[in-house]
């Protein structure tokens, strides 16, 4: 502080007699010195002083000194010391942190507001970027820090500016090679922020050889054992790849998958070494990275090539080794299971490999068996059990052979193998007292049947020994009985999903089900119930759906429950309207929306496990078929001999209705948004106008005062500090102006969206009308609910 004071003295030319100058006065003088002094040393000292004051008097330095600092950056750009001070000062005043020595916390967002002022002229950002090219630490380092600070406050704006500023991204990439670690590491962090959610920047960064550089750094730092820098490198890679097909393609084409290999080398004595928290974080990132490459959301051809490359690079093997290693922390294990699942999902070779993996247990067991043991074990962590289910589903996905292998283990066999099998584990779980195990097992078992008619029939042959002495019963019979007996919702739902998958497209299974005592009565009672507790509406929907499957896939072999009888049962006991509304409960339910998003069942708590992805798909495919069949049956019973709609036509009609309903809703939402935003904009405009007025007024006053001052009519004591308009007001004004323009563009976007939607809607209308016409031509009688407000001339369509 003493040093600083003496420094100031030299700058300000000695202490003034009398009172100490205030901070604001000091800064005013310093700024004056920076802008007008012709001596380089003078300017330099003033800048240094400004820098040291910029934390304590942030507001004053920012409001009075910003322009001077910018000017210096241009004028004195050859002098590294001065530039360093300027950049540091800017860094302080735009910082989003609050400094200890900072006095009055007028405005928490002061750093953000100075950022906004600074970047308003985008050339300023380009200027800072250009300082990255200066190798001198005194310049490059604060330039990196300043960019970080600006980015933190205004991420979106800075991304846009950097993107269009010539070679902006390239300059940052260049200094990733800086041998001074502090700079390199900081740029790494900067790039992580810069690439977040911006595909264009991500692609340029990849183009600039980012993956090569990052692997280089990771190697230098010691792969998995490296410190947080390794994690940062991986996070940046993740940013570059997430949802960026072009970059994933580049990653795969550049053979970077192979370069991941050393990341998976787990030493044999890992149990003694233990897993440091950093190592845990690092491996989590690597697993995320692998999952990004093979995500089910990627285009299929990309995922399958990545899956193949992962296997060829022995990474699938390495992942399975982690799976079977001892002492792996549960969260890593869970994520590894999920990762293995996505690496094998839908890829026959990888699935076959997975099938052969053995666990080093005694006796040795297939990894799949060991995993399923965890799934049906109540004591295992919930997330781990979910992961096993996902992995198992992935193993069976588009894998007829795998499906057959699992079902095979349940069939009465010739060999007396006593080893525990996948099928046995699932059957055990299916009827255990743990409702979660019931649910997991039911879903897992249903995946052995998806799109596999042969296994649906094979599974019918499975017999279970029940109580001693009594006759063995079939698995399907037991499922239908257990569904009625259990009082746990989760178990019931699990079994209903299994039965639906099993019985769809399988008349044999339906026939057996119809013969199970009480089964049909149970479904009817549930479907016709008019009251329900929480989630029971879903249960009723699932029952209705299963009933529908019994109608559609009915070969009339069970006399009491022929297609016709069942249809009448629904018509009389439930009513078609009521039935359809029960059915639609399923797709209306929020858990349906959640489950149909992605194949992985994502749940925080055990109770969240209700519907499952593949079941939702089945429902979507069959709902309209059921409704159509029931409608046709009704017509038949009404002695209507006309042919009804073809299955396909009806499906299409339902689809269009869905689309229109959906669009109606979105249109309404958009209209609401539009009204709200218009309102907001009007308000902002009024506010803005007010502020403009008061600003003008202040400026007038200011001019007046200046005039008075020069005329010497005003005592300088009374002169208010109006060099600048009130900084607070100015900031607020700028912010408001920005908000207004943002709202304007939002509004415009919404208008556009709305137009698009209207166009779509018209399109759909036309199609629907065509359809109706075609249906009419086919002799179908359809009530024309919206014919009167249909503005399209029907004769024009064709």
């Amino acid at each position, binding site marked *: 502080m003493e040093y600083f004071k003496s420094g100031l003295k030299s700058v300000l030319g000695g202490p003034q007699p009398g009172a100490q100058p205030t901070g604001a006065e000091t800064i005013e003088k310093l700024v004056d010195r920076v802008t007008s002094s012709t001596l380089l040393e003078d300017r330099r000292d003033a800048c240094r002083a400004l820098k040291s004051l910029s934390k304590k008097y942030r507001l004053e330095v920012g409001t009075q000194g910003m322009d001077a600092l910018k000017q210096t950056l241009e004028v004195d750009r050859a002098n590294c010391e001065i530039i360093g001070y300027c950049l540091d000062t800017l860094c302080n005043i735009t910082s989003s942190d609050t400094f200890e020595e900072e006095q009055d916390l007028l405005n928490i967002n002061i750093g953000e507001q100075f950022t906004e002022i600074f970047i308003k002229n985008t050339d300023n950002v380009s200027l800072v970027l250009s300082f990255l090219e200066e190798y001198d630490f005194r310049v490059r380092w604060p330039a990196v820090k300043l960019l970080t600070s600006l980015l933190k406050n205004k991420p979106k704006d800075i991304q846009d500016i950097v*993107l*269009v*500023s*010539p*070679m*902006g*991204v*390239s300059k940052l990439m260049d200094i990733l090679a800086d041998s001074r670690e502090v700079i390199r590491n900081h740029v790494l962090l900067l790039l992580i922020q810069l690439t977040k959610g911006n*595909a*264009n920047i991500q*692609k*340029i960064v990849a*183009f*600039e*050889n980012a993956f*090569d550089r990052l692997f280089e750094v990771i190697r230098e730092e010691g792969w998995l054992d490296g410190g947080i820098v390794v994690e940062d490198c991986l996070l940046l890679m993740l940013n570059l790849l997430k949802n960026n097909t*072009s*970059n994933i*393609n*580049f990653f795969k*084409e*550049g*053979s970077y998958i*192979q*370069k991941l*290999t*050393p990341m*998976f*080398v787990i030493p044999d004595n890992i149990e003694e070494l233990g897993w440091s928290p950093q190592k845990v974080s690092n491996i989590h990132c690597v697993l995320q990275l692998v999952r990004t490459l093979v995500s089910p959301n990627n285009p299929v051809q990309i995922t399958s090539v990545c899956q193949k490359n992962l296997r*060829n*690079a*022995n*990474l699938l*093997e*390495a992942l399975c*080794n982690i799976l079977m290693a001892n002492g792996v922390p549960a969260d890593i294990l869970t994520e590894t299971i999920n990762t293995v699942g996505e690496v094998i999902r839908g890829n026959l070779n990888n699935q076959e490999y997975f099938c052969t993996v053995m666990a080093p247990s005694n006796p040795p067991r297939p990894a799949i068996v060991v995993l399923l043991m965890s799934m049906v074990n109540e004591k295992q962590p919930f997330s781990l059990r979910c992961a096993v289910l996902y992995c198992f589903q992935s193993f069976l996905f588009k894998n007829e052979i795998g499906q057959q292998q699992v079902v095979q283990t349940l069939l009465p066999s010739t060999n007396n193998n006593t080893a525990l099998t996948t099928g046995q584990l699932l059957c055990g779980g299916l009827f255990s007292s743990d409702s979660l195990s019931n649910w997991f097992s039911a879903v897992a078992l249903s995946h052995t049947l998806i799109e596999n008619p042969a296994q649906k029939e094979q599974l019918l042959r499975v017999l279970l020994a029940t109580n001693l002495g009594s006759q063995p019963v079939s698995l399907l019979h037991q499922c239908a009985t257990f569904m009625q007996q259990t009082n746990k919702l989760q178990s019931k739902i699990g079994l209903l999903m299994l039965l639906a998958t099993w019985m769809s497209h399988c008349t044999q299974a339906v026939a057996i089900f119809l013969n199970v005592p009480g089964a049909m009565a149970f479904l009817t009672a549930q479907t016709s119930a008019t009251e329900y507790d929480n989630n029971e509406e879903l249960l009723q929907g699932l029952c209705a759906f299963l009933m529908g499957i019994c109608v559609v896939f009915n070969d009339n072999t069970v006399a009491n429950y022929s297609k016709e009888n069942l249809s009448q049962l629904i018509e009389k006991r439930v009513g078609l309207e009521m039935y359809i509304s029960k059915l639609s409960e399923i797709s209306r339910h929020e858990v349906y929306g959640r489950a149909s998003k992605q194949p992985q069942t994502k749940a925080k708590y055990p109770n969240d496990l209700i519907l499952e992805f593949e079941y939702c798909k089945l429902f979507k495919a069959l709902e309209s078929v059921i409704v159509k069949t029931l409608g046709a049956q009704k017509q038949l019973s009404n002695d209507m001999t006309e042919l009804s709609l073809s299955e396909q036509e009806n499906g299409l009609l339902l689809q269009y209705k869905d689309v229109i309903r959906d669009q109606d809703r979105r249109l309404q939402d958009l209209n609401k948004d539009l009204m709200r935003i218009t309102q907001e904009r009007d308000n902002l405009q009024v506010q803005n106008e007010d502020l403009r007025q008061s600003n003008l007024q202040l400026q007038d006053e200011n001019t007046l005062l200046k005039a008075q001052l020069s005329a010497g009519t005003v005592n300088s004591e009374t002169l208010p500090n109006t060099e600048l308009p009130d900084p607070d007001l100015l900031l607020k004004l700028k912010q408001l102006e920005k908000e207004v323009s943002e709202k304007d563009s939002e509004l415009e976007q919404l208008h556009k969206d709305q137009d698009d939607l209207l166009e779509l809607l018209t399109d759909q209308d036309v199609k629907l009308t065509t359809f109706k016409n075609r249906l009419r031509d086919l002799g179908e009688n359809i009530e024309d609910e919206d014919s009167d407000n249909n503005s399209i001339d029907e004769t024009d369509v064709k």
Partner: protein
Amino acid sequence: MSYAYLFKYIIIGDTGVGKSCLLLQFTDKRFQPVHDLTIGVEFGARMITIDGKQIKLQIWDTAGQEAFRSITRSYYRGAAGALLVYDITRRETFNHLTTWLEDARQHSNSNMVIMLIGNKSDLESRREVKKEEGEAFAREHGLVFMETSAKTAANVEEAFINTAREIYEKIQEGVFDINNEANGIKIGPQHSPTNPSLPGAGGQGGSQGGGCC
């Protein structure tokens, strides 16, 4: 998998001239009549052989619209080759070549090989730019020239491969500094003079597949 050299290309030119279709024809050997509008840039890759040497081409297909121009510029510096494409059925895309060329020359390294391409040669009946005009423009500006059709695949292979050959020859002549990655050229793993031995690292045993480090 392994290659002797890796070249980076960019494809530039007005929107709609067929840049994305050319890339798709080259990488996937198919034509897509309705191609999505390119947003920013899209990546594609393929291996070719020149002089018995495997050469990996990494290609960035750019969006032609003005709005993406500044993004596109970020790709010039690191590219070894550029395909500058116009549409022979739309005169204005030919007229804009000068602007594209200026932009490319200003932002790229001076050795970048530029191939001028008049695309859609299958649409002879709608031709607005004579082949001779393309040749003249190329001669005047020192470019290689070719007419192609992304639809029939005519000359598509040749366009990409001849560009690679030019680059390859420049390397042989020592014009390109191949150790500077910013030139858009990389030497393949097994060719790296500093690291001739086999990679020692790798997983625990049984490492098959790619031999690169």
